[in-house]
């Protein structure tokens, strides 16, 4: 049974939606020009009392958080259609809406429900898409996120990431001065945070398996670092590596069969690849320098990593079967902690040239680098599975927080934690 500890509850501060506790808040700190206005009407419900969840509110919150939409405050909705025949498009045009979402929830048996929804183009008065979805009581939030994904995809042409998850590490100090580290997994909107592992010693480097069902991480619970793989749905885990010295930076191959990792058992930190079935270990780098932080290319053929063989840490690339390494980063005197975009065309990294640590993105074809974040202590970039945004760790007002930035660098969001520290975000692959 998974212990559910609501350590972080995201309360969207946007446009009047109200949740009980606001320990984790989202602020859009810089918008993009003209988010598209849309109305998401509270879904009809055919029973007395309230529906198990306010689906329309969850959908609106998701779409707003992408920064590309602005949703109508329901106080302005004098008429609330729940079926297409009830819609008068002129009303919505007058309100300046470009899109309209309506829906209905019906119960269909004990603990069972059916949701129908439709998305309309207000100006043309045309339905763009609609679905009927059976679900159980437990699946309400997840269904809302799926609906937001469908709407997002229809309107932008891009896959939505609202039903994805994020993993991260938290560090809290109790009043008595006891430190606790936690590995947590939450929905992409920060709800349903669950603690996967908790320890008085550090936990680091969470890495999602490509199937989204397991997470590898580093734990110092035994006093020395070891790499574990833990299954999300039942909490079962096994210890994969506990060699002498460093056991760190686990990274899954795209086929989920291998783990790249950093071991210093041979004298200095090098990249190894561990075959999960055969347990065979293959050494990929063998410089006299620090080689660490491996990441696989999406086709599995290459591994990028951090190395200071040139004096200061820079990003290098090497064939995943072993072979000569090639340097990738040439700007600035510090480049480390790289993360490859889902399409394999870009590499995000921690970049510094004047003591200001920021997230930068390197285009592998043009070799041009763009700095995305303001710094000064930014780290741990993680791409959304659709490549549209990056999560990263930052410090703001002396607090360790998570932040998000769009791939083009124009939209910024802070996820602020009021107590404790958050770090090392990892966006799930799906």
């Amino acid at each position, binding site marked *: 049974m998974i212990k559910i500890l609501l350590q972080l509850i995201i309360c969207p501060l946007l446009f009047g939606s109200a949740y009980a506790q606001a320990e984790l808040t989202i602020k859009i700190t810089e918008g993009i020009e003209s988010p598209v206005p849309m109305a998401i009407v509270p879904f009809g419900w055919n029973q007395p009392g309230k529906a198990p969840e306010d689906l329309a509110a969850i959908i609106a919150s998701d779409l707003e958080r992408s920064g590309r939409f602005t949703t109508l405050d329901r106080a302005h909705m004098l008429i609330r259609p729940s079926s297409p025949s009830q819609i008068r498009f002129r009303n919505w045009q007058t309100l300046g809406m470009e899109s309209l979402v309506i829906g209905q929830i019906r119960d269909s048996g004990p603990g069972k429900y059916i949701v129908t929804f439709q998305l309309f183009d207000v100006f043309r008065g045309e339905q763009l898409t609609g679905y009927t979805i059976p679900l159980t009581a437990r699946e309400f939030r997840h269904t809302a996120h799926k609906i937001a994904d469908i709407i997002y995809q229809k309107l932008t042409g891009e896959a939505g990431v609202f039903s994805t998850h994020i993993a991260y590490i938290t560090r809290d100090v109790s009043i008595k001065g006891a430190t606790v580290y936690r590995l947590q997994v939450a929905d992409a909107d920060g709800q349903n945070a669950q603690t996967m*592992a908790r320890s008085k010693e550090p936990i680091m480097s969470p890495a999602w398996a490509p199937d989204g069902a397991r997470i590898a991480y580093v734990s110092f619970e*035994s006093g*020395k670092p070891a790499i574990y793989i833990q299954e999300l749905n039942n909490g079962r885990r096994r*210890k994969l590596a*506990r*060699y002498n010295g460093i056991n760190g930076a686990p990274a899954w191959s795209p086929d989920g069969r291998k783990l790249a990792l950093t071991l210093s058992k041979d004298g200095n930190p090098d990249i190894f690849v561990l075959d999960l079935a055969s347990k065979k270990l293959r050494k990929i780098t063998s410089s006299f320098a620090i080689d660490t932080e491996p990441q696989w290319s999406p086709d599995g053929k290459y591994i990028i990593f951090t190395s*200071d063989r040139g004096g200061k840490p820079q990003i290098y690339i090497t064939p995943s079967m072993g072979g000569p390494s090639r340097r990738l980063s040439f700007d600035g005197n510090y480049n480390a*902690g790289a993360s490859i975009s889902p399409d394999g065309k870009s590499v995000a990294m921690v970049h510094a040239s004047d003591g200001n640590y920021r997230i930068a993105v390197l285009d592998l074809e043009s070799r041009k680098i763009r700095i995305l974040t303001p710094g000064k202590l930014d780290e741990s970039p993680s791409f959304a599975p659709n490549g549209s945004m990056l999560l990263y760790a930052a410090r703001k007002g002396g607090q360790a927080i998570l932040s998000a930035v769009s791939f083009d660098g124009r939209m910024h969001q802070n996820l602020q934690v009021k107590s404790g520290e958050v770090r090392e975000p990892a966006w799930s692959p799906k």
Partner: protein
Amino acid sequence: MKSMNKLLASSLISLNLAGCSLFGGGESGDDVAPVTGPGGDATAAQTQGVDNSDSFSGVETQATDGNYTSNSAPNAGNVPQDLLSQRVIYFEYDSSEVSAEGQAIIQAHARYLAQNTNARIELQGHADERGSREYNIALGEQRALSVARLMKLQGSADNQLDSVSFGEEKPVALGNDNAAWSQNRRVELVYPGY
């Protein structure tokens, strides 16, 4: 009595691996440890079940010195007490080079270890928070190994030294400025049980 302690210690440690938090919060260890730095007590992480049937194990060295004296530096013989009571060596930014001050401290401890062949020490390396975490783990290790090398040159035996790097994960100073960072770039010399 010493061998009983060893047996007890090793069985407790293996229970830790099975997810049992018998060691509690290490508070008992904290009572006797005289100076700064994380104690040597290991505590298990709580998870929802641990299956370690597939565990790899490297060589896991443990503290086996049974001398549990309280609140004072180890009995040093002819080693200067004030240096022996110093348990932290500091480093410059991006460097694992030991200063003259650090070398004096190392010399005192190395001599102690040379004279007490049953004594064990753990060298815990750390880095400041700037930059990526796993690279900082590697930096912390470089510092710990740098100290270990010097200790061996001064007479410590290989099997008396153990090292671990916590990178930036266990800062002593929580600020985000040079003052805090300089306190966090360190190697701690920890005698298990003290």
